[in-house]
């Protein structure tokens, strides 16, 4: 191919869009709406109208600036509520508790409001507004937790929460092929029917006619043979398929990432987290080893281990015990991104030891989170980090929802 240089050209087109790069981190945008009746400027409140003909002012068909500002705040609060509603029931309940205080802290939570549309119904004197609000997510979350948890309590008043956080990772999965067992039986039937028929007919007759005598003697003989044969053969096969569950080998270790992530959030929320290692009861085998052994072989703690764990906490006057397990799967290649992907399954429970018998006040999961990364280690860290954040949020939401302090 010979390029025709006289026609060779390169055209560069560069287009541009906008670049809003001053949005602060942890700011979430959400849309909201509000509808409110309006009266217009204060003068419109006079029912008699103005002027000699007592006609209403033209301005009275539109909301006043004050009413617009009020409506804008209402729509922005609706946006905050929509944002919180996405986090589930416990967050919504928590929002109900902060609704009033949110009004006073409006400027701290809502960083900006953009009015998208406004429609005024002059007949019913109602105005509807749609806005997009930029919301400080971090401040909102803090406010939600602060209203429910005992953050205002002194250190002595705060409840201690023992934490037993363990992580296990799959180090190998032995998969069994489906085993098929078959049996067969054959049934054969054969039948032969035969029939032989034989008939003989004799006939004699005499006839006298004058002086003559005629004798007629006839014998008729018939024979027949009918044969039929039938043979059937039936083969019956039956079998069973036996599928065995994967044999999974785990390695169990303390979930430091999970523990620190949840611990820090508990601390912020007003609890005194205590590491599980500090709640040892000096028994044999050590409590943590026993917990690890249980978790390394199955999904549940043995009853004796659980009782021993709670008893150890009770002896130390620890009111709450948080037991959390995170299980990391084997790394695989994510088909979409091509990166390594690791799943993490998390379960967590919080026991309240204030009564005669321990009671479960929080149950989270099992929930599955996944992490992506250039290698399996990064992917696992991302998965556990994601799992920890969500678990901590769920634990605290449930604690605050139940007003547990």
């Amino acid at each position: 191919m010979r390029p025709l240089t006289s026609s060779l050209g390169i055209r560069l087109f560069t287009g541009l869009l906008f670049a809003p790069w001053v949005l602060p981190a942890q700011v979430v945008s959400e849309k909201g709406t509000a509808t409110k009746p309006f009266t217009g400027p204060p003068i419109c409140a006079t029912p008699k109208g103005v002027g000699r003909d007592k006609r209403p002012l033209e301005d009275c068909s539109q909301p006043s600036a004050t009413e617009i500002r009020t409506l804008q705040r209402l729509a922005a609060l609706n946006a905050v509520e929509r944002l919180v509603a996405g986090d589930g029931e416990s967050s919504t309940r928590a929002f109900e508790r902060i609704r009033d205080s949110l009004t006073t802290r409006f400027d701290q939570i809502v960083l900006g409001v953009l009015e998208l549309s406004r429609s005024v119904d002059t007949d019913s004197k109602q105005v509807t507004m749609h806005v997009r609000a930029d919301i400080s997510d971090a401040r909102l979350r803090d406010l939600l937790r602060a209203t429910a948890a005992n953050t205002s309590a002194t250190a002595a008043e705060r409840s201690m929460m023992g934490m037993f956080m363990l992580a296990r990772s799959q180090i190998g999965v032995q998969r069994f092929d489906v085993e098929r067992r078959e049996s067969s039986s054959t049934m054969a039937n054969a039948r032969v029917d035969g029939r032989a028929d034989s008939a003989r007919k004799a006939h004699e007759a005499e006839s006298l006619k004058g002086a003559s005598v005629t004798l007629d003697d006839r014998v008729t003989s018939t024979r027949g043979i009918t044969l039929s044969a039938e043979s059937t053969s039936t083969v019956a096969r039956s079998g069973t398929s036996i599928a065995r569950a994967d044999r999974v080998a785990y390695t169990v270790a303390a979930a430091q990432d999970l523990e620190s992530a949840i611990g820090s959030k508990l601390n912020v929320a007003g609890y005194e987290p205590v590491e599980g290692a500090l709640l040892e009861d000096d028994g044999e085998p050590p409590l943590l080893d026993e917990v690890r052994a249980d978790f390394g072989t199955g999904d549940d703690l043995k009853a004796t281990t659980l009782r021993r764990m709670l008893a150890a906490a009770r002896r130390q006057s620890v009111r709450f015990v948080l037991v959390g397990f995170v299980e990391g799967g084997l790394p695989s290649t994510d088909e979409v991104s091509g990166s390594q992907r690791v799943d993490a399954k998390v379960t967590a429970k919080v026991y309240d030891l204030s009564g005669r018998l321990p009671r479960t006040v929080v149950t989270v999961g099992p929930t599955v989170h996944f992490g992506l990364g250039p290698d399996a280690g990064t992917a696992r860290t991302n998965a556990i980090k994601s799992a920890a954040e969500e678990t901590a949020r769920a634990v605290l939401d449930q604690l605050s929802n139940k007003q547990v302090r």
Partner: protein
Amino acid sequence: MRLHLTLFGAFLEGIAGTTSRASAQARQDSLQFAGVAYLANAQEVDAKFTVSRKIERLAGQQGRPLGGVLLAAFRRASIPVRTGLARSNGLAVALAFDDEYRTVEALQGVGYKVVTTLSGQILTIDFGEAMATVVSALPVITEYVDVQEQRPGPRYDDAVAEAMLPLIVGDAETNLLFAAATVFASLPAPGPTLCRVRLDVGSLDSTTVWLSASRFGADSARIRQALHNTLIRTWVTAARQPMLPSASSQAQGQMQARFANGEIYRLRVPDPDYILEVSDIRARRAEAGGNAARRVDAVGLQFDASVVEPMSHTTVTRGTFRRVVMDTIPTLRQETDTWTGVVNSAKALTAAIAAAARRDDRRWFEANDVAHTSYPTLPAWLRKCAP
């Protein structure tokens, strides 16, 4: 091989008036540098971006990796970027290739006009939200126009990559990445209350499809995408209005990108506050003069433009606009350049609307706006959304 640049100068001239105003603003913030990415599934990158990947490899072999050149371009354009991407720490910027395609048009008795298009976006990504959210996109589109005696063969990609390399990572002051960085730096830094606008391209009439058949055949999706790129580029340049990445540039509303730190993110594009929709696009073409060497055509374009607020489905503004531009075509390319006339008229009409709205020019609207409904709502909306 002789290369020359066209239109690029005109484009930069178009934004020159705003550069000084924007650069006067003090920037207290800084952006993280996320490098170069591809908006596609990992398995599809090599197959979909053959020329881009070759350019990337060639640039690396010559010691000018795309990421490094882009970083240098940002810094030369006085954009406060810093390296070391930390996901939990605010805004990042990256160049992401999003498309690559080639069209071949037969020239009667001469050969074939081959156009290779590389498309990308400089993305601004907010890691502050729950997931990586694209808050802005600066399209960077490069077309390599070539005339060959025969249809391009399997080795053609190599030749194109070598030819385009100097323009993308070449001379530091003129390469494409620096030009894009300069445009990026010239944009004002909007606040959180700036509108999020998305431009959509709607229906095309059969004549428009026919006019573009020389380039795209009957691929109406590709025609719309090409028109979309043209309209968005022109509108933002003339109106200086922020816009979100187009819906058609993402797969199912989500984009995948691999960044300099090796991580792959699923990018979310937020819902728009307003949708600027250009629809019912009609193009007509008629010979208006010329001579043996060139022909002059009159190309008319008409479309409806509306702005809709999607949450309340409120139509903020609506109008029907039309414009005729003269298109001069060399005899050699008369058979292949019918599409150029459509593009040029689309650019002229879009730029005129945006400029008139920005100037608040009632007379222009009265003379050109068939429906007369978009005035004064369009200028008012523009003032509000892109103050």
